[in-house]
């Protein structure tokens, strides 16, 4: 778990080098890692390749953005409620709203599998993307500024270190809870459904029920990460829901190591470090990212985590004698 020590050391190291921007950059990676760890639950363990996870990320972010806007100007949001800036209200709501749409999207998408599932989740995400683009009341395509960061009594979320450690603690919690979950009874059922759904049905399980639950949990985590990114950039825009953002989340999971939970944390760090270092050479830094990703997929099926633990080879080998 070297990665957690490394992440914990980011603020002091950044201060030592008098480069506070590093904290901001790593903070972004930490928030994306939260969403990606959640995504790994359904892709890596559930075999549900969701290509629309940015929808939940964006829904969570807009929940924070919209509630914050009303809290700022005191206008009615709904039923006379003027929104909120309280993190203990906004963040759980972001999770709840994302989980709710996860339920609807999942109920429809999970009737399909394989390529169709990928396409339907993508289509739903695009639907939400265009919904927010046309939502002119909340900035439309221009996006929406967050007037204030959310409030937690006793904490100053405007303080770089405080906000960083808060996001880091949330990442730790999400990672730990999901690690427990995949080893639980529920986790075993979900993993079984990934391997052989028909067999699971013959054993008395209704796969849809368990897959849908996992999908909603993953969506809720995506929503939480969205609320965090809204606070981080103090700005929300439809770009958060763009399909390329869903792709980015998938890249993070695959790069770090599918079905490992800790892998996406490595993946998020690797992606953002690559972006930061390559962008100084060329603005088309993805030209280099693409080949790197291909190499990782071809030679290190276990991603960064597989490579670090030396399990990359065995993964390829065991992948070969399926069927």
């Amino acid at each position: 778990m070297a990665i957690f020590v490394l992440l914990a050391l980011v603020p002091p190291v950044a201060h030592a080098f008098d480069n506070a921007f590093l904290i901001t950059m790593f903070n972004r990676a930490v928030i994306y890692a939260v969403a990606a760890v959640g995504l790994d639950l359904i892709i890596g363990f559930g075999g549900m390749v969701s290509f629309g996870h940015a929808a939940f990320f964006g829904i969570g972010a807009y929940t924070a953005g919209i509630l914050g806007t009303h809290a700022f100007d005191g206008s009615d949001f709904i039923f006379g409620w003027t929104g909120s800036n309280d993190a203990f209200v906004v963040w759980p709501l972001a999770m709840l709203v994302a989980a709710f749409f996860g339920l609807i999207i999942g109920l429809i998408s999970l009737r399909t599998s394989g390529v169709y599932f990928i396409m339907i989740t993508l289509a739903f995400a695009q639907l939400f993307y265009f919904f927010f683009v046309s939502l002119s009341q909340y900035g439309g395509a221009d996006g929406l500024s967050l007037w204030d960061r959310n409030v937690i009594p006793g904490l100053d979320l405007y303080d770089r270190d405080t906000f960083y450690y808060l996001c880091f603690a949330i990442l730790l919690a999400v990672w730990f809870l999901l690690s427990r979950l995949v080893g639980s009874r529920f986790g075993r059922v979900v993993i079984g459904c990934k391997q052989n759904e028909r067999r699971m049905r013959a054993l008395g399980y209704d796969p849809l029920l368990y897959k849908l639950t996992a999908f909603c949990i993953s969506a809720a985590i995506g929503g939480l990460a969205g609320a965090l990114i809204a606070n981080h950039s103090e700005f929300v825009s439809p770009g958060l829901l763009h399909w390329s953002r869903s792709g980015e989340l998938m890249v993070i999971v695959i790069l770090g190591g599918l079905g490992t939970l800790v892998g996406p944390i490595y993946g998020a760090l690797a992606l953002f470090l690559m972006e930061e270092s390559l962008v100084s050479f060329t603005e088309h830094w993805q030209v280099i990212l693409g080949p790197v990703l291909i190499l990782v997929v071809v030679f290190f099926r276990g991603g960064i985590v597989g490579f670090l633990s030396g399990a990359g080879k065995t993964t390829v080998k065991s992948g070969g004698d399926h069927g």
Partner: protein
Amino acid sequence: MDNVQGRPVFEARNLYKSYGGLRATDDLSIQLETGKIHALIGPNGAGKTTALSQLSGELRPDDGQVWFDGQDITRFSMPWRARMGVARSFQITAIFDDFTVAENVAVAVQSRTRHHFSFWRAVSRDAGINQRAMALLEQVGLGGFASRRAADLSHGQKRQLEIAMALALEPKVLLLDEPMAGMGPTESNQLAELLEKLKPDFAILLVEHDMNIVFRLADVISVLVNGAMIASGSVDDVRDNEDVQKAYLAEGY
């Protein structure tokens, strides 16, 4: 087992199933009794697997009924029937390749417990589940392979594992779709011995190609041709039946 021996615990009544113009199941009625092995035989394409799928709930018949334990279960899904006590195995080996042998059985044992929405406690350390899984593995002769990856088992062992998974459901009815398929003589003999041992406690439907095994194990044999049952009765009845010889045995089986 509250079933009086001799009373059918599982029954299909006049099942019909068509695909376009093809009658896959044509007025099929079949009765399974606890303590008896009922073999379903027939040439390739006779509709044996289609029939079994309707009994297990994977396919819904166009017409007819399926009864279990005095209840009409025609509209019940496969998972529902499995939870009630109708277990099946598959013609093509269906196990969880990435689980260990013990985990394969454990996930089946867990199905009986019904507590699947537990998100916290490690199932790998659930003594109740693990002990039951180990006992089942011993029963089918896989006790020594518990921690092996299921994909690494031999074909015959995988078939044994499937039986253990079906037994884990504590079923009353076992629907076995060619459990000996692809096995060598030694392995199929072992499996036949296992089925003989299991027989008193279950009502077993055995879809099987190997006539030696069928004649050895079956109490009742039903012969399916083009989706319709052309004969049903004891081993001797069916062996001596002219229609059967014409339609089926003459094909060179």
